[in-house]
Structures are given as C-alpha cells and as structure tokens.
C-alpha cells in the first residue's frame, strides 16, 4: 500500500516530464515534420482539394490546438491509422514491438550478467595482471564501432567468406530453432559492444564499494574474500547496477536496436519508427514517442521502488 502510494506520488511528480517529452517530440516531429498533403492528392489537385486534405490532416489549425488535440488522442488511446499503410497504429505496435524485444533482450541480459561477472573478477583481482588484462580488453571493446562489429560478425558467421552458420538477414521465426538461428549473431554483436562499457562501469561501482569501511571491518574479522564479495559488496553495489539496467529497458522495448534491425533487415519497432519519421507517418511517430516517455517514467518509478526492495534503509520520502 505504501509502495503504491509512493508510486502514485512519483507519477504525479513526473507529469511535467511527460508534457515536456510530448511537447519536444510534437514540435520537432509533427509540427516541423514532413508535410504529407500531396501524398493524399491526385496529380493536378484543385485548391479546394488541397484545402480539404490539409484540414483533414489538421495542418490548418494553430500549434496549441494541434498539441492539445494530440494529448487528447493519447489520453483516450485514439492513436489512429498509419498514413502510409492504413493499418491501425496499435496493431503496428503490437506486431513490431515483440520482434524488437525478442531481438534485443537476450543480448541485453547477457551483457549485464557477463559484465557484472567479469567486473567482479576484475575487482577481486584488483591491481594484478588479471584485472589489467580485463581492463585492456574493455577499452579495446569500447573502441570498436558497433557498425564494424555488425559487419564483421555478419561476414564471420553468416557469409561463405566465414563460417556461414546463420542466416544472413531477415526474421523468419516460427519455432525455437529458427528464433535461435536468427537471434544468435545480433546477440553476439550486442554483447560484444556493450561488454566493454558494462565491465568498466560495474568494476568502478564494485571497487568503490570495496573501499568502504565495513569491508575492511569484515575482512579484519576474517570473512572470506569470496563470501565478502558476493554477500556484502555485490549486494551493496546493487543500487547503481539496477538503476542502469532499468533505465535502459524502455529503450529496448521501443527504440529497439535500429542498427541491428536495419542491417539484418529485421522488422522491429526501431526501423518502423525511423522510416515513419523520415516519411512523415505522423500517427506512428506520435504513438511511439508518447509510449517511450510513459515507459521511461515507469522505469524511473520502478528504480525508486527497487531501491527499497534491495536496501531496507531507503525510505519513501
């Protein structure tokens, strides 16, 4: 109950953020966005026809009117139909978001789990060659562009210049086997790119925790180093780790992984949205931006609640 109250209060505080995001997105993507008038007209349109289409699209209204209308549509979940395909926007979201999630989630989970594990090893052997070796690999990994990794992995694993084990592109998933064959190479690329950053970040967090007084005390009392690391240090380092994980989640759901989706021609929501922005398919853009903002706010609230679960000293104030 207390948690629910807290979440509600947090949500009310985050309303300005929702307004801000929708306002920026509306101004940039809708108000100054592509003009679609002529896509709905035949070749030599009369001025009356132009006028009619413009008013159908709402172009003749003032900025504030259009923005308020947009907010109203969002509040009533009246997202409309895509301008280019005529499909319902909700349907498009339902169709493409699961693809993005299925594509990005394994890589995300693996990169966090591996990142934390490697960071623990590095922190445990701090100052030795193990630590230095890991950190060198982390810097090298951080320095390779995602695009290079994607191209290289596709050559190595998906083409006959390399091993040719996996499909080159596409998303033809109907069973566990086909899912695995399509998701493996993207997952490897995501993990490869994220691992360097993650390892460094988590190592810094863990090392900072290891410098605290309670660790010295525990060590003085003869706690075994491994137990100390897992039972005390990792537990106390959980707050920054959880924050980083949860804040990234909304972007996986909605931003997807545009580069991977584009390079492997996977119909995820990231690619759909990018195309929508460029072609000016406003109903899709409006829905996606609003959804991201809402998910982001939920993620913020979720992190705050999870602090309490991890650390009972944190109070809802």
């Amino acid at each position, binding site marked *: 109950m207390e948690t629910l109250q807290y979440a509600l209060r947090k949500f009310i505080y985050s309303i300005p953020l929702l307004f801000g995001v929708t306002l920026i997105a509306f101004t940039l993507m809708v108000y100054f*966005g592509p003009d679609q008038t002529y896509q709905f007209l035949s070749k030599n349109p009369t001025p009356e026809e132009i006028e009619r289409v413009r008013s159908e699209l709402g172009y003749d209204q003032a900025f504030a009117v259009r923005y308020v209308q947009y907010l109203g549509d969002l509040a009533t979940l009246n997202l409309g139909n895509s301008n280019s395909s005529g499909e319902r926007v909700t349907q498009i979201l339902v169709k493409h978001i699961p693809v993005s999630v299925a594509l990005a989630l394994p890589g995300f989970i693996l990169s966090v789990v591996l990142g934390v594990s490697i960071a623990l090893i590095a922190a445990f052997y701090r100052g030795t060659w193990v630590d230095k070796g890991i950190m060198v690999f982390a810097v090298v990994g951080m320095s390779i562009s995602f695009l*290079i990794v994607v*191209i290289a992995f596709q050559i190595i694993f998906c083409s006959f210049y390399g091993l040719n084990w996996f499909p080159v592109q596409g998303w033809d998933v109907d069973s566990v086997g086909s899912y695995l064959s399509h998701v493996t190479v993207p997952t490897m690329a995501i993990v490869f790119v994220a691992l360097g950053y993650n390892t460094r970040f988590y190592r810094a967090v863990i090392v900072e925790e290891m410098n605290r007084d309670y660790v010295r005390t525990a060590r003085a009392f003869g706690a075994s180093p491994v137990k100390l690391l897992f039972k005390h240090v990792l537990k106390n380092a959980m707050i920054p780790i959880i924050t980083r994980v949860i804040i990234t989640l909304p972007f996986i759901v909605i931003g997807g992984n545009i*580069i991977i989706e584009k390079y492997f021609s996977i119909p995820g929501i990231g690619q759909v949205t990018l195309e929508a*922005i460029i072609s000016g398919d406003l109903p899709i853009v409006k829905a996606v931006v609003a959804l991201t903002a809402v998910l982001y706010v939920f993620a913020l609230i979720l992190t705050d609640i999870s602090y309490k679960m991890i650390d009972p000293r944190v109070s809802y104030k």
Partner: protein
Amino acid sequence: MDREPEIQNKEPDSAPVEPRAKRDSLWKKAFRKFFRDKFGIASLVVVGIYFLIAVGVWLDVIGTNWSATTDASFAPPSSEHWFGTNINGQDIRDRALYGTRVAFEVGLVVALLATTIGGVLGCIAGYFNRTIIDEVIMWLYGCLDSIPFYLFVAAVAFVLQGNPYAMHIAMICTFWSSTCRIVRGEVIKIRNLEYVEAARAVGVKPLTIVFKHVFPNTLHILLVQATITFVGAIKSEVILSFLGLGVKNSVSWGIMLSEASSEVSGGIFYNFYTASIFLFILVIAFNIFADSLQDALDPKKVSV
C-alpha cells in the same frame, strides 16, 4: 576532504620557507602526472598525428583526391592507391584522410559546444540547487534523455532539411546532458565550501560567484567530459551516416563503412579495412587519453 593533509605531507621538503607559494596547482600537478604516464603520452601522440592529418586536409595539402574518380573501380592496393579504390574508382587512402578531417570537425564542434552548454547549465543548476532554476534545467535534460537518440537525430535532421550541420546540432542538443548532470553534482558540493560562503558573505552577486568562482573549479571535469564527448560524437557519426542521417556531400569513415556494408558480401574489403582501422586507432587513442587525463586530474588521487 580528509585527504587534504595527506597531499600536503607529500609536498617536497626541500623548500619549507614559503610553503604557500610553492604549492602547485591542480593543473600543474596533473600536467606532471600525465607526462609520467606512458600510455597517456603515447595516446596523445597518436591523437596528435591524427590532428596533423586533419590540419593537412584543411590546408589542402593531403587528401585532395577524395572525390575524383582516378582509376577503375575496386582497383587493388598499389603504390598509387595505397588502400585500393572504391566502387567509383575513388582513392580510398585520400577518402580516409579526408574522413579524418570530418571526424575532427564533428568531434571538436560537438565536444566544445556540448561541454560548454553542459558546464554552464550544470553550474547554474547546481548553485541554485532546490530552486525553480534547478528544477527547470533538470526537467530539460530529463526530457531530452527520454527520447531515443537516433529518433531525435532523425527528427532534427528532417526539421533542418539540407542543413549540413543537422547532425552536429542534434548531437549537441543531446550530449550536453551527461556533462550537466556531473557538473551539477560537483557544484552542489562546491557551493557549501567556505570560499563560496565567504564570497556570498561579502556580497558578491550570485552569477558572479557562479561564473568567476565556481565554474573555474569544474574545468577539470569539463576537460575529461570533452574528451569523452569527442569519442561519442565520432562513434555516433559512423552510425548516423549508416542510417543516412550523417554528413552530406562529403566523405567520412561512417560513409565509407556504409559503402563497405554493401561491398563486403561481394568479398571486397578495401573500404571496410581502411575505415575500420582509421576509426579504431583514433577512438582507442582517445579513450586511453581520456583515462589518463581523468587519472591525472582526479584530485582525490594522491599525487606528488
């Protein structure tokens, strides 16, 4: 704070007559520490070489042949074309050299402006902590952070149609937020120090305190943030060029890589190897440089 005495103890004992005058500034110490760091110097040299290449291209000395079709397409590496030619028969070496200039342009413009904006707004937000000014600045970067980056760039690129700096502007609009966050945190600590309190007590105007007394004490953070932003900008340029949102009417490593992405399936790797190696070496050098700089400038680390 508790480290202060330690630092003083480590001062050389040779000149005890006037310890105040002899005490080195953070910058002098950092300078000395940096030049003892072998990796730091090596990375600085590499970045310096790249910078010279970029200057050479600016002065039209090297990389002049980046757009001329000089030979057959996909000519193999030779003494004339060190790294071969691309599909249009353009010399890949010159294109890579020209790409260095573009990378430095993107990196420098974005790093300078984004860290300046982040630094100034961070100082203001931190100094006026818990006031409406702070709330507004936090709200602003909160909003920008919750819009997916590539979608934001796509939108800005569309709004500024045809503007060659659309990508730069979009990056500046989003990259300042991380600097702002860090500087704000630091300034919240600084504003409670005695010297700020003293300035306030003698009636110095708030904005003068912020810019004359507080801002200079965040410069070491800004320098490190600038190097990190520089790397981020170069790496983002590659991705954006691949998505078709990057530099226009020019060549960059990102454009070379996106050309390469359609060539590698045909077994042609000249563009891919050249652009990857140019990009990788600059980014890793910059990453190591940023690390060394951070080590050298970290006042918490005890240094001689």
